[in-house]
């Protein structure tokens, strides 16, 4: 599903963000990407979303080589990857329903399809009752659930979540994790970058740990910090 082969990234200002990263995420997996700030988590996400090109190496998405793609192809790659951010990024002047429908309008979906899919994903994230609320009437967790609904409404095979619980209290964070776990159970590959140690430890999913641009650990049913590296 997602594959990095010997990927290195050096930004124009000379910062080496990634060096020689190899990783392979299979269809249907739930993967945590952990590591300190500046370790390279965001760079990995930016490379998948084609916000940046790698300096070296190859990146594959859905068996397609996306290492070097023309600018006008990028939107079509992004449609295969739903994204959720720490700061939600909702449109304040649109209702919950409209925020989600917006993602379908952009790709030219049929109005009938929009009317069918939007209520469906809203009920999936348990927001049917708030469909006609504006974002400023919502709590933080509800914000993030709208963002998740928007990310998955076009049924992308991959969902990327960049610190989705970073702005939420622990209880709400778990609400979000349950939603993400549900989405994963329906077959969507989920890649989540996070600092939340307790969530990672309790979820017992695959953990890829990154430090100073290198993958230092990649284990099934892993935890946030390896006990050895902790000492």
């Amino acid at each position, binding site marked *: 599903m997602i594959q990095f082969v010997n990927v290195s990234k050096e930004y124009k200002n000379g910062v080496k963000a990634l060096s020689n990263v190899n990783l392979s995420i299979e269809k249907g997996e739930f993967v945590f990407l952990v590591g300190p700030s500046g370790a390279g988590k965001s760079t990995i996400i930016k490379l998948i979303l084609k916000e940046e090109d790698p300096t070296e190496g190859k990146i594959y998405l859905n068996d397609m080589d996306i290492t070097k793609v023309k600018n006008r192809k990028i939107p*079509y790659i992004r449609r295969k990857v739903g994204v959720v951010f720490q700061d939600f990024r909702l449109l304040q002047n649109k209702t919950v329903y409209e925020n989600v429908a*917006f993602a379908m309008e952009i790709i030219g979906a049929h109005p009938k399809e929009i009317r069918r899919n939007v209520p469906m994903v809203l009920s999936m994230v348990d927001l049917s009752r708030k469909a006609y609320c504006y974002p400023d009437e919502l709590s933080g967790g509800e914000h993030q659930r709208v963002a998740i609904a928007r990310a998955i409404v076009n049924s992308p095979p991959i969902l990327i979540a960049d610190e989705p619980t970073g702005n939420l209290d622990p209880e709400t964070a778990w609400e979000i994790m349950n939603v993400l776990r549900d989405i994963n159970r329906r077959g969507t590959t989920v890649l989540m970058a996070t600092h939340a140690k307790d969530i990672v430890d309790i979820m017992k999913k695959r953990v890829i740990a990154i430090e100073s641009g290198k993958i230092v650990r990649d284990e099934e049913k892993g935890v946030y910090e390896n006990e050895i590296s902790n000492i």
Partner: protein
Amino acid sequence: MRMKFRIFKNIVKQGFQGMWRNRGMGLASVGSITAVLIILGIVLIMILSINNVVVETKNKFDEIQIFLEDDITDEQLDYIEEQAKENEGVLSVIYQSKEQALEIMKEDWGENAYLLEGFETNPLPDSFIVKLKGIEYADSVVNKVQELEGIDEVKYYKDIIEKLVLMANYVRGGGLIITAILIVVSIFIISNTIKITVTARQREINIMKYVGATNGYIRGPFIIEGVLFGLIGAVLSILIVNYGYRYFFNTVNDKLYVLFTVYLVPPVALIKDLSIIFISIGMGIGALGSLVSLKRFLNA
């Protein structure tokens, strides 16, 4: 196909919304485009009129008029006629008395002819009218005749035509430079107007990018907004130039004919071409202005 159409409909709708939300600054854009096109219109009308004058003058005046002194002798008169006839390209040499000249003038002046009644003696001289095959034969005839005895003045239209052509070139060159500068200025003004919408919608654009909107989808509404401003400017300037020129034409044309025996280009002949030119330039300025302001945002 239906999907493409829905996307297109969305883009157009957003374009209109953007224009409405941005109408304050839009006024400046429309104003600048209107001003540019009006000036372009004036330049075009001037060029066309001068061209018209050149062509008409060429056709009308493939002749030389030799004005004679009042106290000319018969021998001198015969000699001049002989000399004139001898030249290559001369079709005929006709004697025109001062009385005939006055009659012709009265006819030409039409209803204003009463102005000529005031003369007690006829102020016009006698003359020979030398008809030529073409204006290009004028020089040699003039050179030969000019120095003969009994000639007051040789009136000769080639230099006038040359001056007109030169003037037409100046007007065209100057006009085009001014228009080009103004077009650049209005592209700049439009691009600033659009930039305001773009900045206001920066967040939305960013989100659209993440959800997978194509550049065309993001760019479309802004281009339509710019084109609409251009279109409004074009329509306004067409109306202003059309009615303005019509008014000018009606007040000036008859008098102009009396003075220079030429007509202006009639407004009816102009309006269609002018409309096409104005609408394409107006919309072009609008689209270019939008593209300029969007370049920065879309490459990020």
